[in-house]
């Protein structure tokens, strides 16, 4: 076993000293932080530049309300005076200003805007979701408020009467109740995406290492010096330890980031990082009914356990037997897969030439 240990130590040291390890270990958290803090930082920067708008009102009753409501919105809008003349002349003049870049856009309300519920926006950029969405809300609210006032109803009273309650979600667990604003969910998503990233990365690292040993014939020296199982598990242990090291470093970064992020913004500022995994297909199923037979079964399948069992844990507290069963199944699956992999490795490392077919690989497993 001392030789397996030598192999493990070599794999570990070569792993953690490689450039790719250092880059990924340092850059990983930086990219993660960029994902979480980046979008909100970008948005707040965008807020510095208000939209310059003008209002052309054919109905004669909306202009003032809309203008004052726009101005009231966190200084997102600058209202410019509309030019004199007929509606057509005013529109033509404003279109020119928009083309010249002196104006970002203008709103046009036809004469029957209120009864027909129509309004138009003209601008060079009509895909600015944040600001146009805000403007749309202002216009809609103003229309409704105008109509209410026309009927003699106070719009603020309607607001008060139709206000929806704020529903808090409190998770009841064995250790007590506490409010959950989705933070646990986001945290587990982030941790899981890190787990999968590093799994993919280290899986590729092991593969490259094996290929390199094979092409350089180092593997012949190794195989003549120790049983292949020792070589195989030595490599696995070494690379695994390097992966764990990376995880520990990342966890440290995560703690640091969460402290920084916590002081900057609430959970609202967190953006869900992009996780494009097949397993995500099951997310709605498991989240929708975390205790259904399907969810329980899926979360017990070894390949899905790391993701789905954790996901269920953020939603409910699964019974102990399920947790124990998932761990046992995982350990059995890992041991079984390692056994199969070791058998394939043993034959495969010395095969040169043509690429083996799947039936051949299956035969390798049973090879004496």
């Amino acid at each position, binding site marked *: 076993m001392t*030789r397996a240990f*030598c*192999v493990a130590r*070599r794999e570990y*040291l*070569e792993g953690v000293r*490689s450039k790719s390890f250092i880059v990924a270990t340092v850059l990983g958290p930086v990219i993660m932080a960029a994902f979480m803090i980046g979008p909100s930082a970008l948005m707040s920067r965008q807020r510095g530049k208000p939209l310059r708008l003008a209002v052309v009102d054919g109905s004669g009753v909306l202009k003032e309300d809309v203008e004052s409501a726009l101005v009231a919105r966190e200084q997102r809008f600058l209202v410019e005076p509309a030019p004199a003349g007929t509606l057509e002349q005013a529109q033509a003049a404003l279109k020119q200003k928009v083309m010249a870049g002196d104006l970002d856009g203008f709103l046009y309300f036809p004469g029957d805007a209120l009864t027909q519920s129509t309004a138009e926006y003209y601008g060079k950029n009509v895909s600015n979701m944040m600001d146009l969405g805000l403007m749309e809300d202002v216009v809609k609210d103003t229309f409704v408020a105008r109509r209410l006032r026309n009927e003699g109803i106070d719009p603020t009273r309607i607001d008060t009467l139709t206000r929806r309650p704020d529903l808090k979600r409190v998770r009841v667990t064995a250790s007590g109740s506490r409010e959950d604003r989705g933070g646990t969910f986001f945290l587990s998503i982030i941790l899981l995406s890190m787990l999968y990233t590093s799994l993919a990365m280290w899986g590729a690292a092991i593969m490259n290492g094996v290929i*390199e*040993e094979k092409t*350089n*014939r*180092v593997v*012949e*020296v*190794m*195989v*003549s*010096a*120790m*049983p292949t199982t020792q070589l195989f598990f030595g490599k696995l242990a070494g690379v695994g330890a390097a992966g764990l090291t990376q995880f520990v470093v990342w966890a440290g970064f995560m703690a640091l980031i969460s402290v920084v992020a916590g002081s900057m913004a609430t959970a609202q500022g967190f953006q869900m990082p992009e996780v494009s995994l097949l397993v995500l297909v099951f997310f709605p199923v498991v989240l929708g009914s975390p205790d259904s037979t399907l969810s329980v079964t899926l979360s017990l399948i070894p390949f899905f356990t790391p993701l789905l069992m954790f996901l269920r844990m953020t939603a409910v507290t699964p019974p102990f037997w399920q947790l124990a069963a998932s761990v046992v199944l995982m350990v059995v699956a890992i041991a079984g897969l390692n056994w199969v992999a070791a058998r394939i490795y043993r034959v495969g490392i*010395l095969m040169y030439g043509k690429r083996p077919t799947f039936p051949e690989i299956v035969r390798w497993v049973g090879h004496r």
Partner: protein
Amino acid sequence: MAHDAIRLSGVTKAYQGHVAVKDLSLGVPRGSVFGLLGPNGAGKTTTLRMVMNILAPDTGTIEILGRASDQAARDRIGYMPEERGLYPRMVVEEQLVFMAEVKGVARSEAARRVGPWLDRLGLKDWAKRKLNELSKGMQQKVQLAATLLHEPDILILDEPLSGLDPVGVNLMLDVLLDLRRQGKTLVLSSHQMETVERLCDAIVLINRGEKILDGAVAEVKSRYGKNTAVLAFEGDGAFLSALPGVLKVGDFGRYVEVTMADGADPQSILREAAARLKLSRFEVVEPSLHDIFVERVTGHTAGVTSGVTSGGQA
């Protein structure tokens, strides 16, 4: 010497479709330099891999130092695979320590041995560099050191001279001769028979997985007799092939090789040649292993067919 260093008995190894080594038996005497010779694809590497337990023979047994091959026995062997056999991105010094360690040398002891070896091979300044930053010749020196660090009794070198420049060949030959003086057993495989025959005490010639002949080099050659004369001269040597007792004349440009029939008298050929040509050389030589090989494989005597067996990489 009670036992051979390595003994193979009836070893056969078949891959899907073809037999790589067929019923091969051979003994490598202790302290000898043993050549495993044959063209590319003859089964040399497969044989060595079976000795190193990299491949398992289908049938037959392999003994090392008088007992069935096990890990402890194999630890007494230094094995250098054909080209490379090292981690390209690993630091030279650490690599050597690691290679000794997996052969059972304690880490501290391995670290102590590395320094003198690097000194001896002139690699001291490169100890902290990665292997792939070194020139090919230097990499081969490192490879040699990696093979020798655990102080094996037997060395198995697969094509040790292939890919070396003349300086590298000389360095390798020096080291090999030095190891022989130390009483180590050396097993070399090669398809370049001319280079290796000078070094070897005993050889085995294999072709298509089968043994063609084996024995001590001197004995093998005497078995095939002194039937070749080499002549260098000025003038027209066309008449040589018509002389009595001459089987065949091979023209090599600067000289010709005359193959004589058994019992022919070299003196009469010399007299004829001296009378009609301006001779600068006349020598009766032993056939080269290469010639013997070609004769055994093709059934013809060597000569103009020279180069058939050593050409072409498999």
